[in-house]
């Protein structure tokens, strides 16, 4: 059981025969229960990779297997969408109904679940993202951040085995962002959901099992957060930034204060300085 890319590539065809290679041949496996963060500059292929993972795009060459089912096989289309929930970058690409709870119910209804099960899932998902009090409102009257929460709830209610999220917190306030991340971490532990989490906010990746770094359609690094996030030349070459705790630790080390250069979180920097007191 896993999502497997074997030498999968993807090219966009433009008019006049132009071809843009969005994903270079890539081999990759995502296990259930894993939290894999994906970082990289704009245009590095992150969103295209996300769409390959749930069969929304089919590889130009190579294959994508979702728990053994090839996304190229038309019979597997429904299976792929159910197994792998994709939360888009922009919630407006996803919201369809004019009432919040109808929108969240849309996916589970399509799964053909009994009404009481749908009800329970919708309530649970709305509670998870903190939008229960808005359940009877029109999503179009809500703010962009609130619509983003509804989009996340809609996918959670499908209870997929894998979740692929493309910048799901970009419009949320810090507390809303933390709540989504905590929910994901619980889902991973309780239901061993595999999560692929695309973000520009490097601080959100420190608790991932591993991080994929993308540039120009290629995965140029794949490793645990501490290894990736403290590799200054790697981060620089991928146009990424070091988290503020890492930045601080390095500045202090340069000034002769003996702190580890491998720090990635606020807790760690405080602990180190505490031990020097």
């Amino acid at each position, binding site marked *: 059981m896993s999502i497997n890319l074997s030498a999968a590539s993807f090219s966009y065809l433009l008019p006049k025969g132009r071809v843009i290679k969005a994903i270079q041949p890539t081999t990759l496996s995502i296990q259930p229960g894993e939290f894999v963060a994906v970082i990289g500059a704009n245009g590095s292929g992150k969103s295209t990779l996300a769409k390959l993972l749930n069969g929304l795009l089919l590889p130009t060459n190579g294959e994508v297997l979702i728990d053994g089912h090839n996304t190229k096989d038309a019979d597997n289309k429904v299976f792929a969408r159910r197994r792998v929930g994709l939360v888009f970058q922009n919630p407006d690409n996803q919201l369809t109904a004019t009432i919040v709870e109808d929108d969240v119910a849309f996916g589970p209804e399509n799964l053909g679940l009994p009404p009481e099960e749908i009800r329970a899932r919708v309530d649970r998902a709305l509670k998870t993202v903190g939008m229960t009090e808005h359940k009877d409102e029109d999503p179009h*009257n809500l703010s962009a*951040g609130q619509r983003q929460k509804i989009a996340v709830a809609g996918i959670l209610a499908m209870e997929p085995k894998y979740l692929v999220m493309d910048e799901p917190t970009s419009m949320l306030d810090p507390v*809303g962002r933390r709540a989504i991340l905590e929910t994901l971490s619980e889902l991973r532990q309780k239901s061993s959901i595999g999560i692929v989490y695309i973000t520009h906010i490097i601080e959100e990746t420190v608790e991932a099992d591993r991080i994929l770094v993308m540039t120009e359609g290629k995965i140029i690094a794949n490793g645990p957060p501490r290894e990736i996030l403290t590799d200054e030349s790697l981060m620089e070459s991928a*146009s990424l930034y070091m988290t503020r705790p890492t930045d*601080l630790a390095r500045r202090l080390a340069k*000034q002769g204060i003996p702190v580890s250069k491998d720090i990635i979180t*606020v807790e760690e920097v405080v602990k180190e300085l505490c031990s020097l007191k």
Partner: protein
Amino acid sequence: MLIEIEDVSYTYLAGSEAANSAVSNASLTIDRGEFIALIGPTGSGKSTLAQVLAGLLKPSFGKVIYEGSDIWEEPKLLAKRRSLTGLVFQEPEKQLFEMTVEEDIAFWPKNLGLGPKEITTRAMSALSAVGLDYEQYKDRSPFTLSGGEMRRVAIAGILVMNPKVLIVDEPTVGLDHRGRTGLMDKIQKLNQGGTAIVFVSHDMDTVAEYAQRVVLINEGSIIQDSSPREVFRNKEMLNKVGLDVPVATEIGARLREVGYHIAPGPISVSELETGILATRGEIKR
């Protein structure tokens, strides 16, 4: 005073059963050359307030005054609205629609009846203000640009009107690190050139880095209007409304808790670094 709003309220679908109050009794002034961050949790009314400030939404109650005149009392002031304020919406690249970058930027000036020469001059300076070369970009289709470039073109389409107040709603969402710092530095340059900035954001570290004044809105009401340092002093209140302090402030506070004598309220990493180095004597080697 460039903009004053007095006791402004705005209700969506006013009068209907679904009436939804987004801003209530807000008063605010914006002066020449200010750099103001408008912060608040998701759904607090920031974007609505931004649109009221920009003269795009007519408040249900209260006054919006541009350089001394009430813009909703005098309908003739429409043109003045366009030249005094410019609002860049969230994800403004979605509003690009012309075939070329130049046509897109020329849209509003053309509508105002400006001559082609004037439009070209303005388009060149607007593009250069966002760091794009006119000759290199003018004939390109906006849809072939990267996310960061599209966002800059959309901002240039507002700057071309030479607004005295530029209002930007979450301008860096979805941009990578380079795009984000590049864009914020351009906005800061505009500010240094005299343009007042109202910057709507959730990102406290960026707010700490750029803003001179912070307006905090929660559930439609302005609950604080002061310096960034002042606002970030109150972590408990910020957490309560769904926000946070910058990372440097957080680390500084924790170090103080464990006994470091660091002055309260560093808001940037370099300030924090200076603060920690000042306690060198307390650190074991």
